[in-house]
């Protein structure tokens, strides 16, 4: 279980989010660009500042402004995958994969051969990272993060930089990871299709606020191209492309909160 309370003011932008995610499965942070999704991930990872708040993984407190706890990023045991894979360009695939693994303390719960097998990257181990395709790079990045033996995996729009075919490829591997490793994941995206494909739990963000949270069904309506245009205590207002759905349909989908 991950619990997050973050208050942070950055210039005109005010981030004020609180949510909880299950210990197992994928929690998706969903919302338009500029909603504060990536800033939330950075704050959880320990690279973004928090003015006030509390971040805990199960019983392990990572940040707490009241008791002045702030575990440094490298000690948080959080794996982080970005939309650009950010592989180490001077290291081969295998050295990239082992980078975090060699530095992980304690029991190695996540096994090298297992990860390589699940992600189908065994044939790439000797390769330099420059020759990899976009999908392969992202698979190696996923493996590298997993092998650092994290207790939480952050996925920051992991498919955003890929074209359609590659998106499906990497998405299939993310689903395999979900099935094979009992590891909570926080997945940031603005794509309703990805929410549909991986989410167990959804946190919908807009303008730095949590709009609604719940099981993944609540954003089914967003798959047809709806965008959040506003919200208040009664519900969420979505704009739907003309002809996609009658207004009543949308309301049925989102009042469940």
């Amino acid at each position, binding site marked *: 279980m991950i619990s997050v309370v973050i208050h942070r003011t950055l210039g005109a932008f005010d981030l004020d989010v609180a949510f909880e995610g299950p210990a197992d499965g994928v929690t998706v942070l969903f919302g338009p660009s500029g909603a504060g999704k990536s800033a939330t991930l950075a704050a959880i*990872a*320990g*690279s973004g500042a928090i003015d006030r708040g509390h971040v805990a993984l199960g019983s392990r407190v990572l940040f707490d402004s009241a008791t002045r706890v702030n575990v440094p*990023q*490298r*000690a948080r045991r*959080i*794996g*982080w995958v*970005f939309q650009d894979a*950010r592989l*180490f*360009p*001077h*290291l081969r695939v295998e050295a990239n994969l082992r*980078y*975090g693994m060699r*530095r*992980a*303390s304690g029991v190695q719960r996540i096994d090298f051969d297992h990860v390589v097998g699940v992600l189908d990257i065994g044939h790439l181990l000797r390769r*330099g*990272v*420059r020759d990899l395709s976009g999908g392969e790079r992202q698979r190696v990045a996923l493996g*590298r*993060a997993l092998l*650092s033996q994290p207790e939480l995996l952050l996925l920051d729009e992991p498919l955003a930089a890929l074209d359609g075919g590659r998106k499906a490829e990497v998405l299939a591997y993310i689903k395999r990871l979900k099935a094979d490793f009992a590891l909570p994941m926080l997945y940031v995206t603005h794509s309703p299709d990805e929410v549909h494909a991986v989410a167990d739990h959804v946190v919908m963000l807009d303008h730095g606020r949590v709009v609604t949270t719940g099981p993944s069904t609540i954003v089914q309506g967003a798959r047809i191209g709806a965008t959040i245009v506003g919200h208040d205590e009664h519900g969420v207002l979505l704009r739907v492309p003309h002809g996609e759905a009658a207004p009543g349909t949308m309301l049925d989908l989102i009042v469940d909160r």
Partner: protein
Amino acid sequence: MLTATEWEVLALSVSIAGRAVLFALPLALIAGWLMARTRFPGRTLLDAVLHSSLFLPPVVVGLVLILLFGNDGPIGEMLARFGIRLIFTANGAALAAGVMAFPLMLRACRQAIEAVDPRIEAVADSLGAGFWDRTFSITLPLAAPGLIAAAVIGFAAALGEFGAVITFAANIPGETQTLALAIYAALQQPGGEAVALRLAGISFGVAIVALLSSEALLAYGRRRSGQ
């Protein structure tokens, strides 16, 4: 081909320029990292001070070195207690040449560090690598081509340095007389033009060899760092 004296001058020049790079490059790397990666009050002023030998006449740099490292200078007196003398010695020539070459190496080091994506370093941090760990496993290997370039630029500048070296270390054959100083000495002799011209030719040869080997090193460094 080369006379014994010419070999001596050549070997001394390479040795002095090499020593200059050896002591100045690590300092340039640290200063370059500070300039590329940190913000602190007085940073611009420090940057100007570090670049000062670029704008001062070399003779003035030599004079400052005499005042600091000479027998009566504060640092010179301290070193003398350990039996180290820099003024009028080959090490002193290396100090003068290194100080003159320092700003060029600093700029190259700074650019090399700036070219390393800080987001890649942040990934290393999230994978459990502390500051020194990621500096040696990520930052320096990725900056290597630029650092090699910094060393080559520093070596070339130190090799050709004249004013600061002759001011601080004088022109002592076999001790501080580098190629540049030997050419100057030859031109002071009646009919020394032929000797000077031969030494000039040697300088040219050294420059070519240094340039070619730096190209080879750079190509190797780029392959290594995958750029």
